[in-house]
């Protein structure tokens, strides 16, 4: 790995200051970043360890009048095991507990999970200088590629799938990400936080140099609000989902209102299936409606040479996740 400067800020303000220059990167649990640096695919000149920040609010889970506030440095284990998260924000608890292994969840943080870099194996291999690393081509796009885990929706020119479980749950829960940066704090809707490769290639979100996520806010659920996250992986534990869905909505008398359907592991961002949402909004969650939503969610899918199986699989994920709300 390349030599780097190491900074331990005391506060968010110091962290932002230390990060306000090219080549500086924040470090949290290191579960994603350290192996990436060792493999020479994530390169930083200066590493700013957020864990030394002592400010309130960047760690832990608090209930407020508005809803729930989760500090960016909160570990995934804390989130997955939190009783209020489990009871009122089920999608987040269910998504978080699927992350990696207990060890990874013990060290990994929410901020790091949301901002982790792609898992595409071409990206993770130093010998492949792909678009995401500033190179000339996306290997996964090639018909000869091993693209079985890549995107079927929203791809081009790069075809990563967004790796974060928590991200799709937070989009389904309509969360707000609070960001601190050189120009002061700002709030970004989860919907707007993640960006497609057509917008940005070297990064998967809207953060500017020097900005960090400080905390995430989720509104308290309305009466009858429900949410769920579901994924399929090749192994029962310690594995990346190959497809999944996070859903939410207010369900009363079998009728769903304001549904959100977010597909996981199939697109470069947590993928909102807006057509499917519109199809069921205000309607009874019948088996037929659920089936139709599954079809609509995947209507625009454009599989690569080796990932067509994700289309029927993701329909199943949508159906089963919605069935959990019914």
């Amino acid at each position, binding site marked *: *790995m390349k030599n780097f400067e190491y900074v331990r800020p005391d506060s968010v303000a110091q962290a932002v200051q230390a990060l306000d220059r090219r080549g500086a990167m924040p470090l949290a649990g290191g579960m994603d970043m350290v192996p990436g640096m060792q493999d020479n695919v994530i390169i930083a000149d200066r590493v700013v360890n957020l864990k030394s920040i002592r400010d309130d609010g960047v760690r832990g889970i608090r209930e407020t009048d508005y809803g729930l506030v989760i500090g960016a440095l909160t570990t995934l284990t804390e989130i997955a095991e939190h009783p209020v998260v489990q009871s009122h924000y089920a999608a987040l608890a269910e998504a978080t507990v699927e992350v990696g292994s207990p060890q990874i969840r013990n060290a990994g943080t929410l901020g790091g999970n949301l901002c982790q870099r792609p898992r595409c*194996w*071409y990206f993770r*291999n130093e*010998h*492949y200088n792909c678009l995401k690393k500033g190179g000339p081509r996306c*290997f996964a796009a*090639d018909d*000869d*590629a*091993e693209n*079985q885990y890549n995107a079927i929706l929203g791809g081009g020119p790069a075809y990563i799938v967004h790796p974060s479980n928590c991200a799709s749950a937070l989009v389904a829960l309509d969360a707000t990400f609070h960001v601190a940066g050189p120009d002061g704090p700002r709030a970004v809707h989860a919907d707007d936080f993640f960006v497609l490769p057509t917008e940005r290639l070297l990064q998967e979100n809207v953060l500017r140099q020097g900005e960090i996520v400080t905390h995430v806010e989720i509104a308290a659920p309305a009466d009858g609000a429900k949410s769920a996250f579901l994924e*399929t992986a*090749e*192994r*029962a*534990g*310690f*594995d990346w989902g*190959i497809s999944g869905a996070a859903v939410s909505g207010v369900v009363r008398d079998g009728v769903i209102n304001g549904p959100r359907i977010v597909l996981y592991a199939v697109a470069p961002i947590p993928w909102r299936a807006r057509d499917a949402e519109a199809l069921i909004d205000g309607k009874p969650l019948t088996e037929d409606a659920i089936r139709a939503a*599954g079809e609509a969610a995947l209507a625009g899918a454009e599989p690569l040479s080796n990932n067509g*199986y994700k*289309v*029927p*699989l993701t*329909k*199943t*994920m949508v*159906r*089963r996740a919605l069935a959990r709300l019914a």
Partner: protein
Amino acid sequence: MAVIPWKPAGEMTHITKNTTRVDAVPKVTGKAEFSYDVLPKDALIGLFVTSPYPNCTAVTVDTAAAEALPGVKAVWTDEGKVCRMAGEFVAAVAAETRDIARDAVRRVRVEWERYPFVVKAEDARQPNSAQVHGATRPNVNRAADDEAGDVDAAFESAAAVVDGTYSTQVQTHTSLESHGMTCRWDDAGENLRVWASTQGVFSVRGELAGALEMPESSVVVTTDYMGGGFGSKFGAGVEGIVCARLARDAGRAVKLLLTREQEQTNSGNRPSSVQHIRAAADAEGRVTAFDMEAHGTGGYSQGAGFPAPYIYGVFGDPPSIPNRRIVRDDVYINAGNARAMRAPGHPQASFGMEATMDELAYALDIDPVDLRVLNDPNETRQAQYRDAAKRIGWSRRNAEPGADAGPVKTGFGIGAARWGGGGGGTRATVEIHSDGSAVVKCGTQDLGTGTRTVVAAVAAEQLGLAVEDITPLIGDTRFPPSGGSGGSTTCASVAPAIKVTADAALATLFGRVAPALDAQADNLEAVDRTIRRIDDPSKSLAWADACALLGAEPISETEQHDGSLSSRGTAGVCSVELTVDEETGDVRIQKVVSVQEAGLVIDKLTLESQLIGAVIQGISYALHEDRVMDRLLGHQVNANMEFYKISGAMDIPEIEPVVWMAEESLSRGVIGIGEPPVIPVAAAIGNAVRNATGARVAGLPITPRRVLEALEREGRAQG
């Protein structure tokens, strides 16, 4: 001294019973020092520079910049090395720390000459393919071409004909403890001390002595504890020889074990296979014809062979399928090479053959268990099919595939194994000291199977002692020689040698203490830590008191294996129950029964452990493991343990290990069984998936993708 046969099983105290591993506590508590843990004072860390291209020559290798880095103490280069895969070793450094070594390898400048490459067997078989070995050898080499009987006529007159193409993937070795060793030159460079992760301390010694042109007696190799070999760790390997060279040049100990990525690419694998099989049976179900066209790849090496037809066939002597045609090609690709891996060839053979048998069973509407009993002349296995079927709950199997309601379907499958095993070539020393200690020395090694426990249990049995009374010393070339731990031969080599030697030591002890008991030596026996007269058991000496009589002259006897105490050839059957979610393609194994004959069972507990471990490895092969080679740049894109997927604890179901304790089997002498229980697991799983869904997933691993694709082909897709 004439060799004494094994006691009847009914008279045994330790053998055939459960003996807890003698090294269980150090292993569980982490006190056991594995070869990877050994780090002599001042040891340097060695690291390789590898080829970034799949087919290339390292024309020049310039290490000047690496050597200039403070902390780099020695380098090794292989200028001119022709690399037939990405990741080949072309240079190495030894440095004060791993970090310095990592920086140093990046400073080695190599000028490469690159050639066209091919990393998929199906591409390599095309007429215009890049040539793996340039002009020297073609990609495709006919490795088998046999014909017997009249195949075409047999197909014409058959009651049932089935036709399928089955494929198995490349399974990399992925030893948890990577390949390599630590080397230190002692006595001013005269003698070489080696701590190796190996399944053959003597073969490592031999290879190192040869490569370094020094007498074997100047090399000492030890392996106290090692983390997995499965057939890939017999020699010193390039990594061992380079380690020794770096240590000599640096004048310091060097530790060089492969990185996880190199372990994936450079430590060998089970080759792939593609088997197009046609088979025919008569109306009763006897298989009359077998016609196979197959190929497989062992990477840049040969060795993709497998036995076929496998197991089944009742005609002739030895029994086989009377009309058979087998054509098989070995295909080169620019990827890591084949190495022996737990039952080399057999799991591949089993996957194609068992699928064929089940398809015949469906075609003829015969129960798959009945069909196997009919076509397998081995009487032990005939009984094992019934036993394994009963234990898995075969009566619950849907004869009509996919008959369950709902998307989650249950399926049952079965498969069989055969293996040689057998032993030889082992010597041992048994010492009995005046303090009562009994020390057994044998230059075998424990590759994790429980060899140390076997040594102690056999000695305890023969000496009439408790297992904890024995000090078993193994894994060192200073002990009497034994062979490599491969081919399931260790137990059958070691246990008889220990028995013969312990018997000899005991006879000597009897001779020395007979006067004290006023008896002839042949009137003594050793039971329950006492030496006593056979004609009058009340006349006895406690073991400790007997040994005290030895005074300053301890007993030391060295003897060897005797063929009358071991045997070859075992039978095994595996049955599986699983569920398949037809909407996600998710396969969940519910239960596996592994029935295995093992001759005379030395330690039932570690034997069951072998069955359980083999089932786990078999599940992993069936559902998860797959080396993924990328056509674009020719690398293995999953050379890690994140995407080279190995089944984890949550994928593993209840496993019922059944050690075959029939008297006829126990009386055969010791036969090793480390390998056979892995053979039929994937085949039985494949058949159970077919039974569950009606769709044949004809390729391994059986991933959600493959299940969904197979269902779609059958027009049964649910999405």
